[in-house]
């Protein structure tokens, strides 16, 4: 008590001593917090810089690995438009990522077609319909689903889904777009559920009452009141799901069949951009064209991620501007 109520001169000087320590440590703590904040930006910039730097020789040309003294240079037109990815060919290596991009996009789109309705439905159920115990159990289970490592998902696709798809579709192999799409959908569902559930729960209860008092049943309330009110959050949930789909590596590596081809149906195997990097970077000769091209694929993935985030930002901002007019 005597320290906190400085009635004597000794009490005052004691407090002053503590304050001196605080005066000294405060800037250090503030500095540390600033550093934590900036570190995220620094790390992202550093990663981007490194990937970009490693990919640059592929575009500008590369001398040491070149055959017969010629400067080897990546043909960017071939890179973006050719479906042929034959990096280790002794005669003529071809670096075309069209098939890989189509592979990534087809798997991601299919997974979203499955995961968005499933995830939104689950979020609506958890936030609006489930009550008490079942609701708590569901939330824990959904979070648990998010914690399953992607290699386990890949294993499920390989060992469980693969023979099932063979039985059901009559295809010789069950590792294809459909398999990867289903696995990826199941992986994206938890994140879509938790983000969109937050968005739905953030809708004020007065909106629900307004809808109900006007005679809406529960489905109409969800569809006509909650979805418009929570659309920013729901959109963010979907975009996070897409981001997850494009970036996922291990599961799609195991489930797509990993063969470079332009798919004509969802029963065709494909290969994705991420899986290509994961599978080949360890084998590629450090410093040669294959190695640098793999990093260029990394840049392409960066561009994808950037476009998705920018779109999300613009849509959310666009909605806000409209709301403020």
């Amino acid at each position: 008590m005597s320290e906190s109520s400085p009635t004597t001169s000794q009490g005052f000087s004691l407090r002053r001593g503590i304050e001196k320590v605080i005066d000294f440590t405060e800037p250090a703590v503030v500095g540390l917090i600033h550093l934590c904040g900036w570190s995220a930006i620094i790390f992202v910039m550093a990663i981007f810089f490194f990937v970009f730097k490693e990919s640059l020789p592929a575009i500008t040309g590369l001398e040491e690995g070149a055959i017969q003294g010629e400067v080897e240079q990546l043909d960017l037109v071939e890179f973006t438009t050719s479906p042929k990815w034959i990096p280790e060919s002794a005669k003529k290596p071809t670096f075309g990522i069209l098939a890989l991009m189509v592979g990534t996009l087809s798997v991601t789109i299919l997974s979203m077609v499955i995961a968005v309705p499933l995830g939104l439905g689950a979020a609506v159920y958890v936030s609006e319909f489930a009550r008490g115990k079942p609701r708590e159990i569901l939330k824990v289970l959904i979070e648990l689903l998010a914690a399953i490592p992607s290699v386990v998902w890949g294993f499920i696709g390989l060992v469980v889904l693969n023979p099932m798809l063979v039985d059901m579709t009559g295809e010789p192999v069950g590792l294809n777009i459909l398999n990867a799409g289903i696995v990826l959908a199941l992986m994206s569902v938890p994140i879509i559920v938790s983000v969109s559930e937050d968005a739905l729960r953030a809708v004020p209860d007065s909106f629900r009452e307004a809808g109900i008092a006007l005679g809406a049943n529960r489905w109409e309330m969800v569809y006509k009141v909650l979805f418009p009110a929570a659309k920013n959050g729901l959109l963010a949930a979907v975009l996070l799901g897409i981001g997850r789909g494009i970036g996922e590596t291990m599961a799609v590596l195991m489930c797509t069949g990993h063969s470079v081809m332009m798919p004509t149906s969802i029963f065709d195997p494909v290969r994705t951009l991420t899986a290509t990097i994961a599978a080949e970077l360890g084998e590629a000769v450090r410093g040669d064209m294959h190695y640098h091209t793999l990093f260029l694929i990394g840049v392409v993935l960066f561009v994808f991620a950037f476009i998705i985030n920018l779109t999300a930002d613009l849509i959310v901002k666009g909605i806000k501007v409209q709301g403020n007019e």
Partner: protein
Amino acid sequence: MSTVVPKLVTREFTSPDASHVEDYSIRTNELNLWYGDFQALMNVSVNIKKGIITGLIGPSGCGKTTLLRCFNRINERYGNVTTTGDIEILDKNIYDADVSVRQLRRSVGMVFQRPNPLPISIYDNVLFGMGIHDAFKSLPKSERNDIVENALREVDLWSTVKDRLKSRATTLTLEQQQKLCIARLLPLKPDIILMDEPCSALDAEGIEKVETLIESLRDEYTVVIVTHNMAQARRATDECIFMLLGEIIEHTKTSEMFLNPQHEKTEMYIQGRYG
């Protein structure tokens, strides 16, 4: 909707002239309501006359909002509500098995304490109820526009918002939002409008305007209004029901209640000695 023959059994609350049963919009008989174990309404028997403004007054927690929320069965959205007794709205027991809650809520509109226009355009807010109740798509656009215009004119909002019908309803001032919340009930042609402290979120000027609006709704609609504001109850209502701890203490003409309260507790409350 009211195909059932009106029950003319004599009840203690029946008016002296029992042949004018249709003069009542809302009748409750021995209504009890529990939230879990807590009894919020006790033997509430009340007759609310058609075409007038009835105020529900009483201290916080006396059950006036609960009673109001019984009339469109919106109480039921909380799972732990138990009700016994009858509520007849327009001579139809709303707990009968053949009652459609949707139709009930169409003829019994509700305005809330905090203005709650939906986060869609003003235009869509007015038509929201229509979208739920009617084969809405068959209406030509011009007719929809007329419906919106009439509803907004009726609440004296048309001239202010006619140039920005497509902007978000949440951008309006609170007073305008509350008027819009009343306007969106009107296309459904309700018989009864329930209001749960409709002015408590508004400033003095807004209160005056919304009160004027409520008064203009008299005759065409039966209005039941919960209020904490004694001055407002006195100004804006024709009859008043005073409630205390889930029971009806007194139900008379507003002028009677404020000039000559029959119960000591009513008198103490309206004089502001407690509550």
